[in-house]
């Protein structure tokens, strides 16, 4: 796979669940390129945020059907999500919000 560092990580996922993971479990959640591997994700996070990654779990979030108005059925596309665990005490500034 020939992905540059910046192509691997697509965006950070900030939700109620991911906030909990940040604070309590030291885990950071990203949406990543569908064909990115765990190794690539680990390297990308380590070099972009200057932290040590202990573990990377990935999963493909399934596409979901949703209804707009009454009849219109739309789909949300599937995407790949990565949960990255950092070494104890390390944080990623971006997730902590603007201080």
């Amino acid at each position, binding site marked *: 796979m020939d992905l540059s560092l910046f192509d691997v990580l697509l965006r950070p*996922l*900030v*939700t*109620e*669940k*991911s*906030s*909990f*993971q940040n*604070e*309590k479990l030291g885990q950071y959640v990203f949406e990543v390129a569908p064909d990115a591997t765990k190794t690539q994700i680990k390297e990308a996070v380590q070099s972009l945020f200057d932290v040590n990654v202990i573990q990377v779990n990935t999963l493909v979030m399934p596409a979901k059907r949703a209804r707009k108005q009454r009849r219109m059925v739309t789909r949300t596309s599937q995407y790949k999500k990565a949960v990255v665990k950092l070494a104890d005490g390390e944080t990623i500034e971006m997730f*902590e*919000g*603007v*201080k």
Partner: protein
Amino acid sequence: MGLARAGSSPAFPICYHERGVQLKVTTNLLDNCEVQMIVELETERLDRAKGAAARRLARRVSIPGFRKGKAPYSVILQHLGEDRIVENAVDDLGQEVYKEALEKTEINPFAPGNLVDASLEKKPTFTFNVPVAPNVDLGDYRSVRLDYHPVEVEDKAVDDTMGQIQAKHAVLEPIERPSELGDVITINAYGTLNPGKENSESLADEKDIDLLLDEQSEWPMPGMTEKIVGMEIDETREFQLHFPEDYDNNDLAGKQVHWSISCTNAKSRTLPEMNDEFAALLSAEYKTLLELRVAVREQLEQAATKQKSQEYRGEIIGAILEGSNIAFPPIMLRERVNNLLREQEGALQSRGLTLLDYLKIEDKTEEEYRAEIEPDAILQLQRSLILTEIVETEGLKVDDKQVDEQIEKTSATFGDSADKIREMLSKENGRKSVELDLLTEMALERLEAIAKGEEPELPPDTERENAATIHTGSK
């Protein structure tokens, strides 16, 4: 999995500080009866308020990825921006801090203070302006002396009034003959100013007006009587008249008017004879004409004395004002101006106008109008402050009995609706306003006595204090 409770305890900046202890308050007395209160507080306090404000705001906005009210502080901050949170926090904290600072400084605010400045750099600092009670120094008001000249009613005034009463009871009878001086004719009058010229305009267009043919009459225009005397019913006369050069109304002086007068009715007017019978006819109270004359004189005297006394009181207040030093917080003046505006609005409403209409007609903005009535408001305010102070220093009091009597007296003048008025005045607010009116009257009477040199005695100190507390309690 524990993740089910994800986000149940978001990371808000929480500081466990004892509340209200770390305030640093400095106060400056400003000239205009306001205290400037500068309150410096711990940064943690502001952070806590920001947290609370953010939590409150978060309950109202939906942030993607979070249920309402569940987003952590950092996310809310990103989403709403710091300014909005700080604004909310300052609103809240300002009130809280204001209360605490007042407690700490033991300032007794006269009206709600306002936050004039909030600086949040380094140490959060709030600046409040707190209005305090007006400061009234009457000076040596007890040495004010003004000459009082009792009013005298001249015989001529009594004669005039008697004449009016006589005229009111005149008997009118239709006539067939041409009208004479002393008759009353009903006319339709049409007057054109500057007839036949470019600037001619209608001066009067009146229908069915009763006119007494009297040589002295200057209405509708001097010289009119001469021209219309002798008119008969259904007769029309056209003539020209000039306003005299020294006429009161400058716009009309020296102008020419073309009149077209038609007579629709004519009556003779017979004045009743002025004798004891006439007096008895007017009211059972009078047996002779002399008694009527005495009563008229008394009435005139009363009215004149009342007016004179009002003028006199105005002069006294003016004299006291000169020697006194009165300071009041700006909010009092603002309130007074508002009151005047409201009164004005009420008066306009009865003519079917709103204040906005009026301002448009006068071509003024509200600010201009406010500035215009401000001097009046200041005068009113000073007057009421002086009177309040007089009530206190002179130890004037009214008791419940006096209030009851006054309520009875006032409501009795309303005739049919007396019960309604009595009920209204007997309520707490009504009683208070009656009490205040009585006190004002007493204060004015006292001032009059002082200015006339009667030197009424001051009450002993203890009584004075009691009176003062009663009075301030009723504000």
